[in-house]
């Protein structure tokens, strides 16, 4: 919570909602807008609205967590797929390179998943773009690959898009709730 600009000598009590010092004779809290001198109905309406926003914030946090977890799933699937391909095609010239590339991509998705905790919107935008690009490049090499794991791909893309929207909504609500 941001520190209030009000200095103690000007106050006579603290706000019941955000605990910020209240300036004498004010009708509304300077920090959260709580109607200090409002009717009981106005005060209850304010509290209900604020609680509703907090519930929304929890729902958005859950969506963002799901999107963040999907990045770990992508990372895990790339690592497993990389090793499977390596052991199936050990004789191939580029077997080592393919394994290395899959491990690097896994690492990138793990980093994006970790980053999504502090900068969810950016992490999800970059992750979705990279994931889409990998699907396209795989389809160029082997067009059948686009159909493999199609349902999982749809789920991951959906989670990431929902995560992006949730990150935007959450940022807006956090600004209001301070």
């Amino acid at each position, binding site marked *: 919570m*941001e520190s*209030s*600009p*009000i*200095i103690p*000598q*000007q106050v006579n009590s603290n706000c019941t909602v955000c605990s910020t010092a209240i*300036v*004498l*004779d*004010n*009708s*509304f*809290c*300077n*920090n*959260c*807008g709580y*109607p200090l001198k409002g009717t009981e109905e106005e005060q209850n309406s304010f509290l209900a609205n604020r609680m509703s926003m907090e519930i929304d914030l929890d729902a958005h946090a859950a969506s963002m967590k799901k999107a963040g977890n999907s990045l770990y799933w992508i990372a895990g699937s790339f690592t497993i797929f990389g090793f499977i391909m390596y052991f199936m095609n050990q004789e191939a010239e580029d077997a080592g*390179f393919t394994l290395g*590339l899959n491990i*690097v*991509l896994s690492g990138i998705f793990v980093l994006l998943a970790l980053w999504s905790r502090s*900068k969810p*919107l*950016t992490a999800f*935008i*970059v992750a979705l*773009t*990279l994931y889409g*690009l990998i699907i*396209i*490049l795989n389809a*160029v090499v082997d067009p059948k690959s686009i159909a493999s794991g199609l349902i999982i791909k749809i789920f991951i893309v959906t989670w990431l898009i929902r995560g*992006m*929207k949730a990150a*935007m*909504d959450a*940022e*807006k609500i956090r*600004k209001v709730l*301070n």
Partner: protein
Amino acid sequence: MDLNTSEIIQNTEKQLCNNCMAVVITGSRYCGACGHSQTDDDVPETTYRIKQLKQVGLFFGIHLLLCCLINFVDYFDDLFWLAIFDATLALVNITFVAINWQVVKTYLKWPDFSLQKLSLYLGIALILSMFTHYTITWLNETLFDKSINYYYAFAHLKYGKILLILTVAVSPALSEELGFRAYLINALLKIVDLKQAIFISAALFSLIHMSIISLYWLLPFSIFLAYIFIKEKTMWYGVFIHFAFNLVTCLFDISSDSLIDNLLIK
């Protein structure tokens, strides 16, 4: 000396409420008299941000489609189609700039031109380009046992060297700076903050080159270009940096091709 309450209130910095004009202590988030919000709502509505994000998605999608066609469809694998695709991409970039002209036009000016600064940036571009050339050549030879030379495709043409420089150095420097810096960064700034806009634009610019192995130099280079764009508030330093970077690659390719020719003649 103790101050009484009225003196303290008098000495505190104040402003007027933007709704009821009552006196509000500076820094307050709400007016104490009417409860109106006093903060500038710098987080735009989600619907507006999603609309902007869709526009960015369309911009990137068109680039991705055209780059996939030129890279992976054999039919388009010649210089004629390369020129057509380059022109189309430039047209796409110009269109998106035109749609966002009011915001972008400021960055097309170059009010504080500094020769010293330009020389410094060009020096950095040359060093980065040489580092990239040697490392990517080593990686290509080590991992794929091959070398890439853009000049081979132009060598048989009458003005091959000039065409190579126009296609690889001049055209991308202008077109990509217009699209991925002037348009894209400004569009992203409507969705995210400055640092995130720099990173996302750099990530998209790197991914559009469709070479995972080149990310190690593409990402830092595009972050550098985006940073210079924001810092200098003009796209022109970036254009020259980009041009110098690509020009060095062209010169390496031309010189290595000439060297091979000489060796073959001997």
